[in-house]
């Protein structure tokens, strides 16, 4: 009988279940490595990974690397977003430009960005800027396409109405195009922030002297499985935290939108 019920349990129950999955994961991992079904050398053990992570934070070594990665992420995100918005607007408002550049934009976007990492390292050195550049190439296109879409998708009636009400082209930008484009940008914010971080970590992984990607690479070099997993754990925790922050910002800025898409939380 109950199986027909479509209602989900309440939020605390769901949180509890989610927590249960996490604990179960660590428990199974622990059991499998403890009984040597999986080799602790290749798979680490949850106890060791947690202990290592804790030690890294306690001794403070991780903060420096985390700071570097976050700085690269933030710079890639900001530069990529600003450039994406500027070019998105330009292309959307200048049809000739958009038509001429269309195939090139598509080609560059289709290129796997990882192959650029060595080139950026060559041009910009092994410091943070080669990582920022890699992140920018990822973030830029997401924001660019969304802004372009946002400007193009403005309802012609809303536009005509604003013009009838006396809006100048500056007013149209501020009161119509920008809000519409920003709503598209914000809906892609999660992806953009995620990609900024991917750019930073992959860049560090492929060549640098600091950052979380560098630490994971170092650990791999000496077959330190626990170190690799510990690095991944730290990365995951911060991605989740950043994502939560983005959700909060999004809710504040997009409160005018109908909340019909999933989620359902207020």
């Amino acid at each position, binding site marked *: 009988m109950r199986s027909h019920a479509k209602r989900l349990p309440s939020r605390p129950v769901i949180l509890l279940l989610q927590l249960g999955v996490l604990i179960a994961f660590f428990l199974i991992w622990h059991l499998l490595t403890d009984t040597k079904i999986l080799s602790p050398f290749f798979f680490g053990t949850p106890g060791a990974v947690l202990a290592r992570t804790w030690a890294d934070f306690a001794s403070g070594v991780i903060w420096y690397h985390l700071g570097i990665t976050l700085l690269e992420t933030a710079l890639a995100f900001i530069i990529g977003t600003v450039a994406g918005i500027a070019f998105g607007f330009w292309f959307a408002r200048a049809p000739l430009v958009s038509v001429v550049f269309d195939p090139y934009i598509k080609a560059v976007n289709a290129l796997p960005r990882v192959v650029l990492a060595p080139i950026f390292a060559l041009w910009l050195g092994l410091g943070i800027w080669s990582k920022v550049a890699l992140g920018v190439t990822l973030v830029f296109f997401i924001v660019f396409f969304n802004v372009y879409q946002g400007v193009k998708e403005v*309802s012609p*009636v*809303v536009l*005509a*109405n*604003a*013009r*009838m*009400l*006396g*809006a*100048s082209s500056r*007013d149209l930008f501020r*009161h*119509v195009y920008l*809000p*519409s484009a920003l*709503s598209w940008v914000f809906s892609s914010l999660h992806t953009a922030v995620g990609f900024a971080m991917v750019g930073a970590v992959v860049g560090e992984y492929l060549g640098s002297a600091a950052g979380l990607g560098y630490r994971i690479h170092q650990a791999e070099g000496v077959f330190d499985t626990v170190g690799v997993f510990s690095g991944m754990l730290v990365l995951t925790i911060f991605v989740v935290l950043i994502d939560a922050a983005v959700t909060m910002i999004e809710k504040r800025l997009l*409160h*005018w*939108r*109908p909340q019909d898409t999933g989620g359902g939380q207020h």
Partner: protein
Amino acid sequence: MAEAAAAAPALQLEGVTCTFPSPDGRGRSYTAVQGASFTVADGEFVSIVGPTGSGKSTMLNVAAGLLKPSEGRALSFGQPVTGINPKAGYMFQAEALMPWKSALDNVAAGLEFRGVSKAEARERALPWLSRVGLEGFGDRFPHQLSGGMRKRVALAQTLIVDPKIILMDEPFSALDVQTRQMMENELLDLWAADRKSVVFITHDLEEAIAMSDRVLVLSAGPGSRLIGEYRIDLDRPRDVAEIRMTPQFLALHQEIWAQLRDEVLKGYAQTKLR
């Protein structure tokens, strides 16, 4: 000079023809309106009725300066309409509110575009909200309002900038009968107070007669033209609910409906054919 401008009609369409290219770029183009000519005097309330698809919205777009006619021209207060008609306010048939602005900010938008500070624009928008019966709804966003409420916000938004001629495209068709009559009377009061010119489009012949000085009848498309013009000499001020009971009203209704009915049937048949 000034006198000539004052005497010029609020709106004058001269042989306006609107042809749209067919959607696929080839094939036959579609002529929505063919040689439409009419004038709306300063301070006059004119309704246009016609079957669906007969080009009513198209003519209004020409009057607003949003659409360049393929032939003919529009004049507003003696000035040829090229680009947006600055003397006109336009209440659109479709949803036209800015979804990212609250009801209050939507109403205030026109003032802001005219350089009024945001704070002052909001202050001046408040009484307009209560005038359309939406006191206390100012901080709602369009998606949080009902369809009828959105129409009322749009009405306040159009009127707050004090246009000399108001173009209204089926403004009240989304409202229930009571609210509708309330809004119709409110519009008549506003109109009587400062005698703006109004071009009012509606499907509803009764509404057209109750509100207007003159009713124009448009034939079914394609190539629709004005086929009838009726002067409505009912006394003012009017109450839109009461006036429907008077014998003059019924006589006018019968006369115009006789002509309109045939066009509506033709228009319906043509829409099905296309």
